[in-house]
């Protein structure tokens, strides 16, 4: 039995090491490319270890890239506001739906679940957000569409509240004349830290990595672009040049596009904050997702 267990341990360690390697290597390549000059990449191709370390790309970003720094700041701002709003809404909605005596609970739950399966598509969504709610060309365009409330997160939160907060505790609080808001803040939230941390990470990651909202809703206010929008726009321009490379008049634009190493450097600095905070969330993240998943 012990031998069997050790065999499984070795097997799973090998598999996980391979998977870990597959996950980490692209990041190594990314960092290595950002520290390699374009000429070296052109001649020798990409390599996991730079032949010669070249920090020009980072110097370019920090010395001349006020736009990059502004976009970086926008990313922090949008992620901060968006995640806060997201967590507040998710928590409130999850709490409500966890109440078994909520009028229309089944309908509301189905309504939320339905949005996980179907959506209106790009153009109808754009029309609703831009013409009805009028978020175009404002910071609201980066925060509200798509990301402010996730049906998946609401269901996770509801399930967590339903299965992990003992009903007796809430009833006892009610008997002590505590209000629903009081119960939420005094009992449910303190007991839901793992799930809240998990959802915070989900939401922050979604905001941090989002470029769709900027592309759709900031057509005339591109100075509000986040770092991912700037990177995505560069990438789109490069793809455009590649697609239309035979148009001779476009050749001159190659010089307007930041070099490969600069693009890699932007990608590196855009993932650093997430890499930095991830370990602090991980313990909650694992617990929260396991509890929410198993008992859901």
């Amino acid at each position, binding site marked *: 039995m012990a031998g069997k267990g050790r065999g499984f341990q070795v097997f799973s360690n090998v598999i996980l090491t391979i998977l870990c390697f597959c996950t980490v290597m692209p990041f190594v390549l990314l960092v290595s490319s950002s520290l390699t000059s374009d000429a070296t990449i052109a001649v020798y191709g990409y390599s996991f270890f730079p032949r010669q370390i070249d920090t020009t790309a980072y110097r370019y970003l920090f010395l001349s890239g006020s736009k990059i720094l502004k976009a970086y700041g926008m990313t922090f701002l949008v992620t901060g506001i968006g995640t806060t709003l997201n967590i507040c809404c998710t928590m409130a909605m999850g709490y409500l739906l966890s109440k078994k005596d909520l009028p229309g609970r089944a309908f509301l739950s189905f309504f939320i679940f339905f949005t996980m399966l179907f959506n209106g598509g790009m153009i109808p969504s754009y029309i609703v957000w831009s013409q009805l709610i009028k978020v*175009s*060309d404002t910071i609201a365009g980066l925060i509200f569409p798509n990301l402010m409330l996730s049906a998946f997160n609401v269901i996770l939160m509801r399930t967590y509240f339903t299965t992990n907060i003992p009903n007796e505790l809430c009833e006892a609080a009610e008997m002590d004349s505590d209000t629903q808001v009081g119960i939420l803040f005094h009992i449910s939230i303190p007991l839901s830290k793992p799930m809240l941390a998990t959802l915070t990470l989900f939401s922050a990651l979604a905001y941090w990595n989002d470029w769709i909202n900027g592309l759709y809703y900031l057509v005339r206010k591109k100075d509000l672009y986040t770092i991912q929008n700037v990177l995505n726009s560069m990438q789109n321009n490069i793809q455009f040049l590649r697609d239309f490379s035979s148009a001779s008049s476009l050749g001159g634009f190659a010089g307007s596009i930041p070099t490969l190493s600069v693009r890699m450097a932007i990608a590196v600095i855009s993932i650093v904050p997430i890499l930095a905070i991830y370990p602090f969330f991980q313990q909650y993240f694992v617990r929260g997702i396991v509890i929410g998943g198993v008992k859901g």
Partner: protein
Amino acid sequence: MKKRWIALFLAAMTVSLAACGNSGGSAAKSGAPAASGTVDSSAAEGGSSGAVQASADPSDWPVIRAEVSAFTDTLEQKDAVQDALNQYLVSINAGVQCEMVPLAFGDRSTQLTLMLTDADNPIDLFGWRFYSSVSDLVKNGQIISLEKYRDVYPDLWKLYPETVYKTCQINGEQYSMPGADSFGNYQVYALRKDLAKEIGVDNLAGTKITREQYEDILAKAEAAHPEMAWEGETMVWPYMNVDNLGDTNALGVLPDMGVDQDKIINYYSSDEFKDYVEMCKGWADKGYIIDDPLNTQRIGTTLVTNNQIGGYMFEAYNIEYAESLMQAQIPDYEMDIFQLTDPHCTNSCVYTGWNISSICKNPDAAMKLLSLMMTDENVSRFFTLGVKGLTYVVDDKGIARYPEGKDANTDGWNLGAPWFYPNQCLSIPFNTDYTGYYTDMKACWTDPNMKYSKAMGFIFDTTPVYDQYTACTAIVAEYRDALMLGQVDVDEYLAKFNDELNKAGIDQVIAEMQKQYDAFLQENGK
């Protein structure tokens, strides 16, 4: 008690969501420039004369949104250029104001598609190059007919050869105004001057060379510098000597650049295409084509600058133009130019056209602005060059340059795309020593030696064979580049390519194309 609290929660959530929406709206109002001006419902319904009557107060004039080309996500001098343009429009009592909307080329397709659905914030004037085609825009109901303005602005229909206008017409109606260009090109090969001298072919520079001479140049260059390649970009159509009828999928083409041609053929099954791809395969095997071209960014200028290739093919309307293009695009090296083919004009040589969107609230004002962009050099230059002294300066030869200390990344305006606008010939040459850049371009319009394809103005409507057409284009995307860049075995892959095209129904596509082309020839008395 509990239910009351729950109800209160629900109400609070609803109110907060609604408040979020409203705050977004008010921010939009305060942050965005003026909306698209006075709504002229009669104009939209086609009841107006088409002319614009300017009211005394310019603040009452409609604001037309026109797109501006960009290769970065922001143009820092946009507000300054827009203000200067609007001041000029007031000074000439134009009766219309303009809001410039910069769209980066890479994002443009998505953003333009969305803006063309946004009736609250419509884009009014835009070009179809790199976005769509006149026929697709008309089919999708995205643009309006300009036919009613023919009497209001008759001069706009006299700028270019008549046949050029036909390329932007559907069923005889003008939907788009063609953008000025040479309307005829030939293929050239640019080779680094130092390498041309080294291999002893510099004496041929500036002349027309045969295919044998061209291959001889490539062979000598490869022998001298085996570490480099000599073709970077995808092979370009004019060297194949066919008119692809304005569709790069080329499912049906006219041979001999369409000159006096009545019969559409399946080029991919022809001996000419086989010869062509065999030549490409030979070049790839000899090392003329860059390594792994299917996964490499094939931009000739970058590849030359990075010393990966020594030369590449592109299109030009004359040798001087090609030289000036190289001078601007590859400042590190001087390039020699060799002419490979004769000049021809096909549908593909009309690169752009400008349109009024179907959601435009004041098409008369939009047409007024479009007419000014096509005929008023001041208006045209605000778009192509920005503001003199701010985004460009003019040297003593009359050439536009970046102001002192500025370059493409810091200028704040996109000076490198005059060809994007309706009439670049009203601009002045930028960043070149070739002072005849636009005068020679205009001279092409009246050049008696220019050969026009018989299919000029023919636009294939794919609707009757939509399924077959779509299936064939997917197959072309899968096979053609690999064949044309010499990356696969010609016999095996060409047979597979044609086999799949036949199964997908290329014959039906060509038959439908021929039917429509015959009708087109008959209608136009050709």
